[in-house]
């Protein structure tokens, strides 16, 4: 059962977008900046004009004003009301289904306990840390009992570790409360970790809707230039080792890949997850290779190094600083390690 369906939705930025979000699903929209991700959220919330049709499980949403759409919108800049306390921010969002000040305050307390921030009820937004503000904004969106949550880059402004923690929290809450969510992000890791399905948006078009594990295969270099292109290695001679690993052969070398419980023919690894150095690094001799540099491309503080390894090719990404330290140039030989936990069968 679809909670939201879009049929040929278009405006100045979006071009014929059609897809559905199902009951209990988390749907992620990924794409480069300017692809129309935020515009699509605004269209759904009724904040931007469009043609085409949008339905919720309650009927058509076309022409329905934002305050009647029941779309909880978590804005990138949160937009907590600065003149209200945390509790005030929550109670103002509660609709007519909760009658009475006392009941509203009780509901607010419940939500704040869920978010683990019940101690902050009487604080003002500017007295909170970034992560706390994020939780308040999520609690507020939930307080309005929306049919679906729209989240715009919800974790992008946060410190890496806090973002990771909040993602886990979000997943936990979603399982517990069973809300539907559509979130946009440019962080692939985030999309893979949270989403049940992922839509790839490019130049206002929805080019793919895929399961998280299939994303790397579907997005070809032309469409997904924003995606850090993973290396897809064609492997053969697979053998289960019995300790949660699968041994595979690539470029005439033996590698270990974590056993994720499903069959595969290829292995994906992101360029940033490959370690290289000029000398063979210390440590266990697992998943190592030697390669020769074919090409070095520099962009935005990072260097993409194209290696040939025993007739196969692989891309490695390192910082420019590290490139300078190693003093590498085309034709040099390097030693590399494919980080075990970063290898994914697909």
């Amino acid at each position, binding site marked *: 059962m679809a909670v939201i369906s879009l049929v040929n939705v278009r405006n100045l930025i979006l071009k014929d977008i059609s897809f559905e979000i199902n009951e209990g699903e988390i749907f992620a929209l990924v794409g480069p900046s300017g692809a129309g991700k935020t515009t699509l959220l605004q269209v759904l*919330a*009724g*904040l931007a004009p469009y043609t085409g049709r949008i339905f919720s499980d309650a009927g058509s949403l076309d022409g329905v*004003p*934002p*305050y*009647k*759409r*029941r*779309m*909880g*919108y978590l*804005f990138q*800049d*949160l*937009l*907590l*009301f*600065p*003149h*209200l306390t945390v509790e005030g921010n929550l109670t*103002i*969002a509660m*609709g007519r289904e909760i009658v009475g000040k006392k009941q509203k305050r009780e509901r607010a307390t419940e939500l704040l306990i869920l978010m683990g921030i019940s101690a902050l009820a009487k604080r*003002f*937004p*500017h*007295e909170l840390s*970034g992560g706390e*503000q994020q939780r308040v904004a999520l609690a*507020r*969106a939930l*307080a*309005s009992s929306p049919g679906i949550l*729209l989240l715009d880059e919800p974790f992008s*402004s946060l410190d890496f570790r806090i973002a990771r923690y909040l993602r886990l929290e979000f997943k936990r809450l979603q399982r517990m409360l069973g809300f539907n969510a559509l979130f946009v992000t440019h962080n692939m890791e985030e999309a893979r970790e949270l989403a049940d399905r992922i839509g790839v948006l490019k130049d206002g078009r929805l080019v793919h809707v895929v399961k998280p594990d299939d994303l790397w295969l579907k997005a070809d270099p032309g469409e997904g230039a924003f995606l850090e292109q993973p290396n897809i290695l064609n492997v053969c001679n697979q053998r289960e080792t019995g300790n949660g690993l699968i041994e595979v052969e690539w470029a005439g070398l033996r590698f270990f890949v974590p056993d994720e419980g499903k069959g595969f023919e290829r292995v994906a690894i992101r360029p940033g997850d490959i370690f290289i150095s000029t000398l063979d690094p210390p440590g266990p001799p697992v998943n190592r290779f030697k390669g020769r540099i074919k090409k070095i491309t520099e962009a935005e503080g990072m260097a993409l190094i194209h290696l040939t390894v025993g007739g196969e090719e692989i891309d490695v990404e390192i910082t420019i600083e590290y490139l300078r330290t190693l003093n590498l140039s085309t034709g040099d030989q390097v030693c590399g390690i494919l980080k075990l936990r970063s290898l994914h069968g697909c």
Partner: protein
Amino acid sequence: MKGLYRLCFIALFLMALLVAGVLFALIFRLSFKELWDAISSAEVLFALRLSLLTSLGAIIIALILGLPSGYLLARRSFRGKAILDTLLDIPLVMTPLVAGVGLLFLFGNTFLGRHLAKVGINLIFSPWGAVLAQAFIASPIIARTCKAAFEEVSPRYEWAAQTLGIRPLRTFFRVTLPMARQGILSGIVLAWARAIGEFGATLMVAGSTRMKTETLPIAVFLNISSGEIGIALSCALILIAVGFIILLILKQIGNNHRPGLPMKGIG
């Protein structure tokens, strides 16, 4: 540079001396006893009461007209907005005396004036005229300051409110208005200061009838003309006190940056 600063200091000192001299001349012209008798006279009390009432009425009208106007100008663009916006500035730069003449001609013995008189609204040479004159001066001030105050509140907060299911009117009163509160309050105080001290336009529209359309500034004018220095000075000192109170209130509003009231770049 030192010589330059010295010259500037002389200028500053002369200005301060002049202001202090004026205050001194007003306050110490009469003995305390004479002043007290005058202040407790029926005429001064009448003028004070009339000024408070007419300025209050003018501010209410100015708010009813100016607040929504300011909001619209801050939020929407529409055909003719620039012209309307400029039109609102005219009362701010117009000599009040001339504005008064204009109001007199518009509401006097004209089609509009006669029809208003028929339904019992006599604006000309009545206290209501004072309200009209003051409202004319105060409304654009309120509209201006409200526009600036609403512009400080990002419309994205209104978006957020609406996605939370809060209706537009409730959004205005519970989100936008409280967030713009400080600027609006300053505007009200400034407009009130202009209204209570308003003389030129009031003189033209309401006239200067003793104990009828005698606001504080009119009372100063009437009594200086007729040599009643005591009453004139009492009213003048009340106006000075009002000015001080307004300065204090404005300072208080400025200092009172309550937690969370519009801050830039909410993170």
